[in-house]
């Protein structure tokens, strides 16, 4: 059932649009072009800016689209949830599966683009997979909480859509983190997204293995997020039916 619903999500996301799946790629690529136009001269300390930017953008896009989709998944399927005995969790989980599927599919063209900018594939690139898993766990927890709260208060959805761009600028995606002044560093440190983006960059841009500390941090955040999000979802679930 999960697979069928996830597949429906993948197909529906792009079904009626002309370019279909390419929208997944186009969105970060458009951002990349804007970045290149504006920032490429701004950060001379970055050797290969396109690779730097893209290695952050791919995962930011994954985060923003997937969290928004999961958040809306319960309300969008309210008609089904009101009249069939389907566990509500099916819809968030299948949205995550659809998001992961999209992400993995987009790796292929992105690898080609990165190659074009002079970044050769390496065996250590496979380390992206465990980071993606942790990241997916983190997103799931956050989005479960959002989805559950969104059933009761539609403000949550609007608020999240307003907050996403703010997170985008707070998180060092377009710019290197060492540009942040010392006294503002704590903001970056408490921002979970920074740690995930940083881990992806360590692998894809620096070509290094993330430190043990990084692994602990991203694992712990994923775990915490799932526990808290899952708990909230469980507590709020009995009231969904009256508030869809």
């Amino acid at each position, binding site marked *: 059932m999960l697979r069928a619903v996830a597949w429906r999500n993948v*197909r529906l996301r792009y079904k009626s649009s002309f370019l279909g799946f390419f929208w997944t790629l186009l969105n970060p690529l458009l951002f990349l072009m804007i970045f290149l136009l504006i920032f490429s001269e701004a950060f001379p300390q970055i050797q290969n800016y396109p690779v730097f930017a893209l290695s952050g953008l791919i995962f930011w896009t994954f985060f923003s689209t997937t969290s928004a989709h999961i958040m809306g998944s319960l309300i969008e399927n309210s008609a*089904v949830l009101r*009249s*069939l*005995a389907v566990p509500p969790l099916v819809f968030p989980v299948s949205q995550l599966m659809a998001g992961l599927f999209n992400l993995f599919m987009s790796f292929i063209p992105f690898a080609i683009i990165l190659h074009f900018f002079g970044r050769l594939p390496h065996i250590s690139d496979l380390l992206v997979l465990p980071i993606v898993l942790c990241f997916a766990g983190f997103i799931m927890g956050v989005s479960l909480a959002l989805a559950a709260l969104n059933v*009761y208060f539609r403000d949550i959805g609007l608020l999240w859509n307003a907050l996403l761009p703010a997170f985008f600028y707070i998180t060092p995606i377009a710019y290197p983190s060492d540009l942040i002044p010392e006294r503002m560093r704590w903001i970056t440190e408490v921002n979970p997204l920074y740690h995930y983006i940083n881990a992806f960059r360590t692998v894809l841009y620096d070509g290094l293995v993330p430190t043990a500390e990084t692994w602990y941090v991203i694992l712990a955040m994923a775990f915490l997020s799932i526990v808290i999000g899952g708990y909230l979802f469980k507590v709020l679930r*009995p*009231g969904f*039916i*009256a508030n869809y």
Partner: protein
Amino acid sequence: MIELRNVHVDYLVQRHGMRSIKSYLTSFGSKRLLERKHILHDIDLRINGGECFGIVGRNGSGKSTLLRLLAGIVEPTKGHVRINGHVAPMLALGVGLEPEMSGWENVRLCRMLMGHQRFDGEGVRSYIRSFSGLSEDDLEMQVKRYSTGMMARLGFAIATATDPDVLLIDEVLAVGDVAFQQQCYRRIEELKARGCTIVFVSHMLGEIQRICDRAACMENGTVVKVGNTHEVGVHYHGLLGIPL
């Protein structure tokens, strides 16, 4: 057999729309954000296996919630619900139909949501074809191009394409032309003859009296009268203040 013993259902609902968050924040948590509402209370009901059981009652008397309870969509806050066998709820027609996908794809998806196996046998396919009266061309077409009546036919075909032990029907037969309605009643009679238990909710006493063996009348969230369809009809009309 279906048995409900001292069943209560409470819903957790928002107090007063969007304003509540503001008043909640300004009251520093002394006001409650969500309110417990009693939807069903003190319900004791026994429906025998193979029986066709009608439920009448005014709008908002709790009929639909009772069906949701039987379908397993709502859990009782207090009390016990016992229900034997596979339950097929038909609380709304065309639920889960995805406009962008074809008829057959929708059949697959909806059956999956109803908890069936992944692959539909030829038996199911030919049943859908003959019951809905839709041609192979129609079924290959995107559902968004269907007329309302075609949607209803497909919805009912999907919903009844099983041999459920218990069929729950919530006033879905009101749509569709007369010929289609008669076809629906024939299917109900057919399932009944096979020993399927049917719970049928309707405003229309005539329908209840035509197909049901016994009936119940609901008022203010509880069952106020159980008996043969004539007795219940008299009681219901008494409530409405309309002589039978």
